[in-house]
C-alpha cells in the first residue's frame, strides 16, 4: 500500500518551527538588508519580478515564517521534500543554494522581508 504523504503543515523542513512574530524590529531589518544584498540579490528581487528565483514581494504573507527560515538555511532538502519548495524548483529549474547564511542572519533577512511587505501593504492602502 502506498503510504500517504506526510501532512504539509506549511512550516517546511529544517530546524525552524512555530516561529511567531513580535512587532517589526527596524534595526534587525536593517541588518537583514545588508545580508540580503550580499547573498540573495543575485537571484531574488524584493519586487514581484522573477530573476533566477521568484520575486519576494509578499512572501511573508504567502509563507509561514518557519518555512522561509528553513528555505534560506536548508534549501536542498527543502526542494527535495517540501511540496511547496518542490513545486518552486519545478517552476524555476535552478537549485537554490545555501549561501553560508547563519541562523541569526536568516532571521535578519526574514525581518527585512517583513519590512518590505509592510511597506508594500502601506503603499497599497494609499
Amino acid at each position, binding site marked *: 500500500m502506498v503510504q500517504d504523504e506526510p501532512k504539509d503543515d506549511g512550516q517546511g523542513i529544517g530546524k525552524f518551527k512555530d516561529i511567531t512574530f513580535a512587532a517589526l524590529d527596524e534595526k534587525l531589518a536593517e541588518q537583514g538588508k545588508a545580508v540580503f544584498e550580499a547573498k540573495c*540579490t543575485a537571484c531574488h528581487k524584493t519586487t514581484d519580478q522573477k530573476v533566477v528565483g521568484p520575486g519576494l514581494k509578499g512572501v511573508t504573507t504567502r509563507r509561514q515564517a518557519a518555512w522561509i527560515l528553513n528555505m534560506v538555511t536548508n534549501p536542498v532538502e527543502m526542494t527535495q521534500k517540501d511540496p511547496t519548495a518542490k513545486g518552486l524548483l519545478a517552476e524555476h529549474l535552478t*537549485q537554490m543554494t545555501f549561501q553560508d547564511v547563519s541562523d541569526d542572519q536568516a532571521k535578519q533577512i526574514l525581518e527585512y522581508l517583513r519590512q518590505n511587505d509592510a511597506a508594500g501593504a502601506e503603499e497599497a492602502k494609499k
Partner: protein
Amino acid sequence: MKSKPMKPVFSFVIALVAIGLLISCKPKKVDSALSGDAAKKVYVAPGKYDEVYLFTSGGFSGQVGVYGLPSGRMLKQVPVFSQDAETGWGYSEETKPMLMTSHGYTPWDDSHHPQLSRTEGQDDGRWLFINANNTPRIARMDLGVFKTREIIELPNCGGNHASPFTTQNTEYVVGASRFSVPYDKDGDASIAEYKDKFKGTISFVKVDKESGRMNLNFQLLVPGVDYDLSRAGKAVSDGWVFFSCYNSEKAHTLLEVNASQRDKDFIMAVNWKKAEEYLTQGKAQKWAANYAHNVYDEKTHTATSTMEKEVNVLDVKGLPGICYFIPCPKSPHGCDVDPTGEYICASGKLAAVIPVYSFSKIQKAIADKAFDGDFDGVPVIKYEAALDGEVEKPGLGPLHTEFDDKGNAYTSFFVSSEIVKWNVKTKQILDRVPTYYSIGHLCVPMGDNIHPYGKYVIALNKITKDRYLPTGPELTQSAQLYDISGDKMQLLLDFPTIGEPHYAQACPADIVRKHEVKFYKLDSNNHKYAAKQEKDANVVRIGNDVHVYATAIRSHFTPDNIEGVKVGDNVYFHITNLEQDWDVPHGFAVKGANNSELLVLPGETSTLKWTPDHAGVFPMYCTDFCSALHQEMQGYIRVSPAGTNTALKFSTGEEEKK
C-alpha cells in the same frame, strides 16, 4: 625461483595448472583463488568513498595525480609545475607568479617525488610536497583545498632529484643536485674540468610548523658526484638524512659506461642537527644568489613572486661531523629507512645484493673512526663497520623499498619486473610477485612512517605494453595494486595514471579529510578586484587597461553586456564567484582569448587578461555546467576600433550603469 623470477608466460601456465588442480580437488575454493576475490577487494560501491588517498607524481606532466584506493579511481589532477588551461593555473593573473623562476616564467617541469607532511613520523594530511627535477624547485600543496600554495626555487643546484623527503616532524624538506656543476667564476668552467671544479649541493628548506611556509635555511657544499635519492631518519635516527650517490667516478660523459666502473659508490649520511649547530655558530658562507620564492595567499586569492638574493652555504670539507660516506654496491638508487629508524636499505641498480646498514653501527663506526680514508675530504666509513647484513640474490635491478607494520620490506626490481618481500631483521626473502612491467618506485600507504598502514603495496610501472587497449604509439602509464595483508602478495588491480608515476604516497583518507575545505568564505575574500555582491560590479578604464569587476552566480554574470572597449585595450576580467556552497565552480571564457579559461571556485576571485585584436561583438560564457540554465549564462562585450568614441557602459538585465 629465488634468484630467477618466473617469466610471465611460465607463471601463467603454472597458474592454469593450479586452477585446474583447484577445480578438480576443491571446487568450492575456485572463486577465492580466481579474480572474484580480487574484484571484491577493489569494489567500492557507487556513492561510497575509497579507503585511502593515493598521490602520484605526474612525472613529465609536472603535476600530481590523486586517486582513491582500493578502487584506483582517479579523483583529481592538481596542477603544480606546469600550466593547466583547464583551471587557468599559470594563465590567470593571480597564478602566473607561481611559475616564476630565476629564468623568468617557466611553464613546465618534471615532478618526481610526492611527500606528505608528518608529525612525529606519521603522515598528518596537511601538505604534500613535490620536487621539480629540471629547474630545481620544491612545491607545497595544501591538502585542505588540493591546490599548490607555494613554490621555492633552489639555487646552486642542477637536477633536483633527491627531494623533497621530509624529516620526522617536517622540520625540513630537502633538495639535492643530481648534476654537479661548477660554482666559482660565475660558473663558467670547461666541462673537462669536472673532477676539480664541479660540486654538488644539498639544500635544507625549513618548513614553518603553523603556516607550512618554506624558507631555504642553508645549503651544504658536497663532493661532485650525482645525488640520487634520499630519506630522512626517524625515531632512533631522527636528525639524520641519507642520500644515495652514483658516479663516484666523476664522469661527465657517457655516464652509462663511465659511471658504472667502480664496485662501490656511496650512501651519504648527513647529520642535519650538526649542520644547524655550525649555522648558529656563524660558520656559513653567505653566497649571493637569485632564486624565486612564490607564495599564494588564500585571502587575496593572489600569488606573489619574490626574488631571494642570498643563501647560507656550509662547506662540509672544513666542517667535520656533518657528512659521512658509506660504500654501497654499484650505483645505488633507492635509500630507504625502515619504520624503526635503525635500518637503512640501499639498492644498487647493478648490484647482486641489497645491503642493509645499521644506524647504531654507523654511530659506533663514527665514534671508533672506523674509516677507509676519505673522499674529497668526507670520511668514508668501512663497509663492514656500517653493515647489518645483505639480502642475497633478491632479483635484478633493485630500486626502492617500502615497509609494512610487521617488520617486512618490499623492494621493487626494475629489470626482473617484480616486487620482493623480505624480512628486515633476518634478510630472508618471503615472497615475490611479478609486475607488468618494469616497476620503478613502489608505495605502501604510510610505508615510510614509523607506523605504516601495511595493507597494500602499489607498483608504479614504467611500461604497460599489452596491458591495456592500445592508443597509438604512446600507451598509458600504469600502477598496480596488491594486497599485502596476508603472507602472500596478491595482485588486485591495474589502473592507468597520468604522466609517468615516479613515486607515490598514500595514507588513510580520514587523515586528509579532517582538513577538508568546501568553499572560500566571501567575507574573507580580500582580492583587490573582488566584487563581493552584484551591486559592486563595475567596469573601470585606466588608460588602455579596462578592469571588469564581475560576479558569477547561477546562472548569470554581472555585468553581462559591456561596451566601450577599444582595440588595443588590455581587458582584465576579474570574476568573483558569489556561490557559498560546495562544488559550484563557474567557468569563464571569452572568444579569441590567447591564454585559457578561468575556473572560479565558490568565494574565489580570478582574473583573465584579454587583448582583443579586432573590432566586433565578442561572446563570453560560463564553461562549467552550473544549473539547468547554464546554457543561458552568457554575455557580450563590444570592441570598437581604436580611436573611436564608444562610451564605456555595462549592464545586466535592464539597468544600465555608466
